[in-house]
């Protein structure tokens, strides 16, 4: 998809923008919150994607992984906006005290939203797979939804479905495995490296939510 977007494929470009917009917006939002540039977030997000489609994506290589590249583009665009703003007449030194200097906390905002995007992809992947695998797999998706979206314990779901809790616990374990597999697949598509590197990246993403 990234290569397709880099090559100018409209569908891939659309998918690309949909997928990574939250992470870019989170980063810029955190960087400019309460500051004079808070109203420029939308423009800057647009600019980040503009730059991606104008050639930056071609620089995505096997070594760095895509997350680092997108983060770098977002940071550069943010800096350009700030520089531009400094030259403008509205600039007042005091306004800038609100811009956090700590790049670490900004990258954490980006990473967290990035992690959420990857988990969403894993969920979608699991749902796609389930449609192919059949009714039982789809029921397992519903089980995860009730467990995590509605916060119901397995025993309550068993009562609701009039199923034995033991059976549902087995299904639940299977559903978790399926999700894990999807997550590893999605992460490996975004991150270069061997199995160990993928596993490390998965842990890194999940620590935002544990």
């Amino acid at each position: 998809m990234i290569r397709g977007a880099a090559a100018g494929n409209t569908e891939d470009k659309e998918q690309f923008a949909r997928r990574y917009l939250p992470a870019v917006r989170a980063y810029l939002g955190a960087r400019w919150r309460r500051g004079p540039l808070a109203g420029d977030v939308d423009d800057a997000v647009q600019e980040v994607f503009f730059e991606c489609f104008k050639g930056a994506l071609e620089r995505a290589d096997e070594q760095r992984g895509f997350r680092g590249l997108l983060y770098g583009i977002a940071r550069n665009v943010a800096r350009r906006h700030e520089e531009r703003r400094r030259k403008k007449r509205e600039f007042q030194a005091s306004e800038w005290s609100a811009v956090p200097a700590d790049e670490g906390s900004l990258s954490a905002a980006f990473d967290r939203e990035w992690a959420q995007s990857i988990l969403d992809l894993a969920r979608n992947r699991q749902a796609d797979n389930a449609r192919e695998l059949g009714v039982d797999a789809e029921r397992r998706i519903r089980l995860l939804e009730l467990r995590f979206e509605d916060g119901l314990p397995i025993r309550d779901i068993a009562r609701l479905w009039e199923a034995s809790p033991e059976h549902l616990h087995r299904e639940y374990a299977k559903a978790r495995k399926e999700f894990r597999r999807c997550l590893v697949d999605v992460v490996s598509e975004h991150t270069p490296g061997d199995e160990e590197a993928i596993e490390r990246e998965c842990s890194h993403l999940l620590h935002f939510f544990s």
Partner: protein
Amino acid sequence: MKSEELDGGLEAAYRKKARGDSILATIERLTGAVPRVFLRDDSTLPSPLVKPADGPDSDRYQVIGEIGRGGVGVVLKGRDIDLGRDVAMKVLRDDFAGNPEVIQRFVEEAQIGGQLQHPGIVPVYELGLNAHKQPFFTMKLVKGETLSALLTKRATAQEGRRRFLRIFEQVCETMAYAHTRGVIHRDLKPSNIMVGAFGEVQIVDWGFAKILRRGGVDDERRAKEAAPTTTVVETIRSGSVGSESCAGSVMGTPAYMPPEQALGEIDKLDERSDVFALGALLCEILTGRPPYGEGDDSALVQAAEARLDGAHARLDNCGADADLVQITKRCLAPAPAVRYKDAGEVVEVISGHLAAVEERAQKADRAAAVAKAKAAEEAKRRRLTVALAAALVCAVVATASGLYWVDKEQRFSRELALVPVADAKDAALLAHGEARADLSKWGDALEAAKHHLASAEATEGADVDQARMLVSKVRRDREAAEQAAAAAAKDQRLVSRLEEIYTWRGEDFPDDARAQAYDKALSGIDAESMRASPAKAEIVAALDDWEKFDLASEVDPDPWCIKVRVAEIESLKKLVKDEREPRDLLLLAARLERGGETEAARELLLRAHKVAPKDFRIAFALGAASETNDAPRYFQIASLLRSGRIGTDYGWGVSMLEAKDMRSATPLLESVYERDSEFGKIRLRLAKATQMLGSSDMNAGRLDVAKTQFRRALELDPDNEKASIQLGWILFRTSIEKPDVDDAIEAFRNAVRLNPEHPQWRQMLLSHLQGAKRGEEAVQMAQERLESLSESGTNAARSMCLAQLADSYRSIDRNDDAIRSLRLALKTNGGEPAYQDLFKIARMYFEKGDYAAAAQVTREAIKSSAAQRRLSAYYYDLLVMSFRKVGRASEAAAAIEECRRRYEEMAVNWSWKAQLAWWLARSPHPGAQDGERALELIREVEKEGDKANPICVVAKALVNVRYGNPADSVDWLEASMKGYGPTHVTGAQHRCVLAMALWSVGRKDDAREQLGIVRKFMTTWKVYASELALHDAYRRAREMIGE
């Protein structure tokens, strides 16, 4: 990847849907981060969820399951996504969703629950509309068991009677509060009383409640009209036979119903009807069953005929104290006039009874101990005298047997005459005992003793001296008891006063006022009396708070405390780890806080609170020392410990205001204001809360409500700038036909007068003056301001003022002056003109008819904005129109293509696609393929995007009206008009579109009316010639409608 990590990931992935468009999602979009905390569950009691439900989620609440359902409502368990807490949500049943009467009663129920602020009443959090526009309200989710369930679990009616009487006392206290607020419940019964894990008692289901005196509603009439055939249950938790609540001709629950309610005599229902239900509740506690429900006839028939014989018989044999049985019978009296007049009176008698029982129990313990000691002594003595006693008994028996037969008849007659005297003595002793437990009964006791004396004096052989002694003893005891009670009441008043003064903390209360109040409260009490006083601990705490450390040390000479009172801050810090009593820690915390060690002070208070959770002073101090979000919790605890205290309510209300919980803060502060309108800074605080509430209503589109709130805020605090400016803003928008221009401008002027340095206030005033065609005044104001800044102002301030002057000139068509002022503004600030400034200059050229200059400057603006990847169709519109005006058609066509190309380049997600569609639909220069492309874009946007997003809906409506089926968008356009004021340019433009859509679907009168509103706007408001999109839409609407 560990298992718990995966759990977190699964939750994040599968919780996604719940994020929706909640406040947190919005915050997340704005700030890039979202706060989420989840506290440990506060109770091990089972959640009341009975089954999952498909209830409609609102934006903020996620439905988890159903708790129960009644005649008109369903109670769901929901989760507040933003605050991460579970709530109970009450929604209307679908079949009543279209019934305005039922909806009105439903909303009233929420309002009653929201306004009754008492620990015994489940608080209503919010009233709202869900996605299907059905009203719902959320309440605290009460975890615990119903009183009905607890009563059912008893093996006998005697089991746990004391505990249930305590619960009953709390129910009466809650109802006493409701009665003072003019509310009667009308459906009190055990299943409507929840008992929590920590003994807290709450009355639920105020669905049948009625407001007395201040009007309210004619509920039965409305219920009859709403559901003439319905006789179903309106209760969350169904009870036993006869405990269903009937909605329809008679509302309430027959087993607990007074006769006037069962007979449907609604005019006669008042507080005494609830008193009857309280009696029925007490009857069930004492005898195991409510008064009605036995026998063949229905409970309703029995209630209507007041068949209470069975209940009375059960009460007489239940083994309870006679006075308790008497209280119950009086509550259950068929005639309301015989009953206690309200729940407050029931509280008094029940509390008195419980206090007497308590005292009796203590006395019995003491008597048992004394009797045991006496018995031991007696046994010892008896052993020494037993032989002598035996001989004596033999002699007496011999003599007596000789006399017995002779004296038998006389003795029998004397004993018979003494019986009434003995009865009178027993009654006097009993009354004496009761009076010792209840001060109000001393009069009865004295009467009984006098009666005994009179009886003794009239009877030969009676012990008159003993009767006299009893009378004088009763008198003495009465005097002593009254003196003790007066002293205790005085002590209690002193304690209450000292605690009240303690709550005057922070910047809202001047220190000297506190000092004077303490001085007055403690005047005339010397150190010795303080030491001897039962209120010594509170007096010492007050002295420490007052910083009268010498006197405090004299009264409480504890060495550690003395050290704390005199030590320097560094020495104090070394004492924080000492193990001391909670009150000692409170003293140390106060000293540390005054020394600036706020964090250490807070930690100490937390420690103290943990050990003494019911200590009012510690809870209050903790509230005052806590962070914004924690403070309300501790103030609430303090408030629960001392309910109704004005200072506590004030602290709690202010803390909620600071935590931005205006909906909870406002009624509480309002109640403080009602009690004392000069308390602390109640006016300012209430004004701020009301203004913030108004802002919230304004943002939600409830403009009329907001207007009232702002007026109220200004009435409380005429210097509230925000209320003034927001009121002005609203006055412009609340009436389409005739905006309150003069009032609105006066409100803006008031805000500027209050804060002349606030640039935004001035800007609002000037722009509205300009729009209202009062540009001359605006020019004069801007010039005066510029003059005042000529010496002292900064360049930035002068620049801004020049820009405002430029706008004012422009509004009176002095465009040359306007351009000159704007350029001077840019020069004064020393920066390059931004693209927005350039565009404004271009518009001014256009408005004065210099189209070539307009085209040139617009081109510059576009070039400048392109550097920021910003797209604005307005710029291209102006460029195209300027080219056309000077006959440069090919350049105009090229500009259109350029605009189209730039939009297409960026249209990679739904948001930008919607923007492109919007441009195509409103473009004054449509291309041949524009219609097809716009419709295609809308289809894609609907597939991918957020359908409720304003960009999507407006784009869809405009495209439909211009190229598709206008009927699809009429509803939305009509609804959207509510969001625009009469002076809104975009609103006028959309109104033109609405007029065209209405015309297209055949609603011709409505179309003409909408066009009429726009015409009025175009003539009364300053509409610039460069508002091309509006002029174009107006022209097309007029052409279509034929004007």
